[in-house]
């Protein structure tokens, strides 16, 4: 098991390295315009452009440029050209909002997703199943920013039931914190909920047809035990691994939702930077997000190995 973990860790580092190189290429090499010009953004003066060229070493060789960029990001010295503030600080500031959004939504979507999926599978073919499936598929078929706009319009602007924007620190006022997050949570959860309920449903249906479920019944286990100990235990494995991947990806910032609800999280910072063509934050955020994706990818692999003894121990005897 130790070697497995070590290998994955090494792979992780390599992938992150590749991601950083790719980011570098995208922003500095691929497009057909002057990188310094683009970095200086809208307020470009010739002096600014020249100082950028100096500072970022655009006159240097490519590998040297890459090293310079990496150094800046990791030393926390990266300054954005629009806001004139340290990028890394802004990112850290945005973490509570982003994480609050993600964790809250995750709790909601997992709870309902698993519940709906379970009900659909157990009553497969019936009216409940059909209804839940329609709801689920509709959920994954809608543009989330559209749902957000509609919820905002009817539940916030028009009726004032929920606040339309802003993020309140949990430590400041837990009630307000939750109150401001309800609509974003719902919007984000609706999507994933649909997806997870369908995955669980289909996994459960597959598992319920497995031989070992038949054996469990033949042993005289109660239906509750059969469902709980055999069907669910095995059905939840793919769900948990998928969740790990999705959640990891989400931690990099839910751009659209944060922007629409003005939560000032990392995603919103990304959106602002993009709108302003402000490249340093984008680079940092990309790496930040990629880090979590890769981290959770590895966690999921490890969890999967733990959950499925066949993977953990390797198929030995025969």
């Amino acid at each position, binding site marked *: 098991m130790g070697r497995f973990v070590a290998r994955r860790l090494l792979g992780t580092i390599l992938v992150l390295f590749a991601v950083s190189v790719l980011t570098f290429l995208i922003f500095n090499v691929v497009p057909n315009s002057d990188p310094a010009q683009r970095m200086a953004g809208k307020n470009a003066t010739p002096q600014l452009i020249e100082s950028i060229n100096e500072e970022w070493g655009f006159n240097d060789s490519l590998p040297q440029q890459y090293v310079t960029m990496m150094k800046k990001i990791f030393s926390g010295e990266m300054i954005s050209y629009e806001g004139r503030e340290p990028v890394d600080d802004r990112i850290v500031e945005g973490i509570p909002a982003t994480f609050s959004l993600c964790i809250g939504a995750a709790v909601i979507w997992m709870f309902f997703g698993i519940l709906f999926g379970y009900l659909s599978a157990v009553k497969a073919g019936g009216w409940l199943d059909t209804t839940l499936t329609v709801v689920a598929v509709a959920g994954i078929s809608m543009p989330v920013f559209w749902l957000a706009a509609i919820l905002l319009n009817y539940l916030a602007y028009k009726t004032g039931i929920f606040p339309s924007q802003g993020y309140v620190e949990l430590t400041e006022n837990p009630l307000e914190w939750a109150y401001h997050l309800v609509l974003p949570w719902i919007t984000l959860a609706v999507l994933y909920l649909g997806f997870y309920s369908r995955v669980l449903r289909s996994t459960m249906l597959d598992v319920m047809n497995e031989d070992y479920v*038949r054996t469990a019944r*033949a*042993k005289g286990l109660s239906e509750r*035990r059969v469902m709980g100990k055999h069907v669910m235990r095995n059905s939840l494995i793919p769900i948990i691994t998928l969740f790990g991947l999705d959640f990891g990806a989400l931690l990099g910032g839910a751009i659209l939702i944060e922007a629409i609800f003005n939560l000032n999280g990392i995603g919103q910072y990304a959106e602002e930077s993009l709108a302003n063509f402000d490249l340093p934050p984008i680079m940092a955020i990309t790496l930040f997000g990629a880090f979590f994706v890769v981290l959770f990818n590895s966690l999921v692999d490890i969890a999967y190995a733990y959950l499925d003894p066949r993977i953990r121990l390797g198929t030995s005897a025969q």
Partner: protein
Amino acid sequence: MSEPLLSVDGLRVGFVTEGGRVQAVDGVSFELAPGEVLAIVGESGSGKSVTAQTLIGLTRSPNSRIEGSVRLRGEELIDAGDEELREVRGEQIGMVFQDPMTSFNPVYRIGVQIAEAIRAHRPQTRKAAGRERAIELLDSVGIPNAAQRVDDYPHEFSGGMRQRAMIAMALALEPDLLIADEPTTALDVTVQAQILALLARLNRERNLATILITHDLGVVAEVADRVLVMYAGRVVERGTLDEIFYDPQHPYTWGLLGSLTRMDRERPERLPQISGAPPSLRSLPEGCSFRPRCPHEFGRCSELPDLEARLADAPSHLDRCWLRPEEKRERRLVEGEIGLESPAR
């Protein structure tokens, strides 16, 4: 027999499928005495597995239509409630399935799964006691090093050992009847013999009545007392082991016997087989369902024969063939041995 352990009468099982209704089992009847070994033989699709699984209600579903009677010591199981059925399973009737790899849950240890079978009926069993019992059981079926292996996962066992573990689990609560659905089909030939020997031993030592489902007559010869031959959902012949092997009455049985490769005979030029294929259960032929593959068919075969005793001196030897006994004795010999030729076309 005095008081049959299991009494099956007119069992019929149909399934509603996409393409229409399929009658997988059409009128199966037999009795099983305590300690007796009954073999149910047939090709895939003959209905033998469905019969076995229906005995403990595993085929109950919205798509299935089950009729007839299955009585365990006089208690009717067909319409038994879920709770009643649950108590019978494992405690009174144990069942072993074909593929031991997929029949165990891959994420739980073997010992845990065995203990689970025990706890289903003895909820007060403590964890340590359950584990001890599991070790005993594994040992009793011949698994070496049971105390260590009890904590292994299914995939760490070899095929033969897994099947032994399955058998141990099925017998954990000492039921009087064991149903073994193709227990050796997924195993190597050498291992097959071991498993059969195990089943024979268990039958002797514990007076364990056994229903053995198989497509392999060689397996039958080893352990069975009585034999049921099934074809396309119906029983086509029923009798004692000797009756079936030495005085078979149905052409299908002749075909099965003829296709056995035997060490005590000349090696044939080509492996003998029964020509043709079993019919689709959706569209059974009129009358005798074996007719299209039978070289001895004649006019009367368009009428479905009843399952009857047609031999004066063997009242428990039943078959479904219109041929007269003398004709049967003659026609079943192909080049001096029991077998079945291809129908002339």
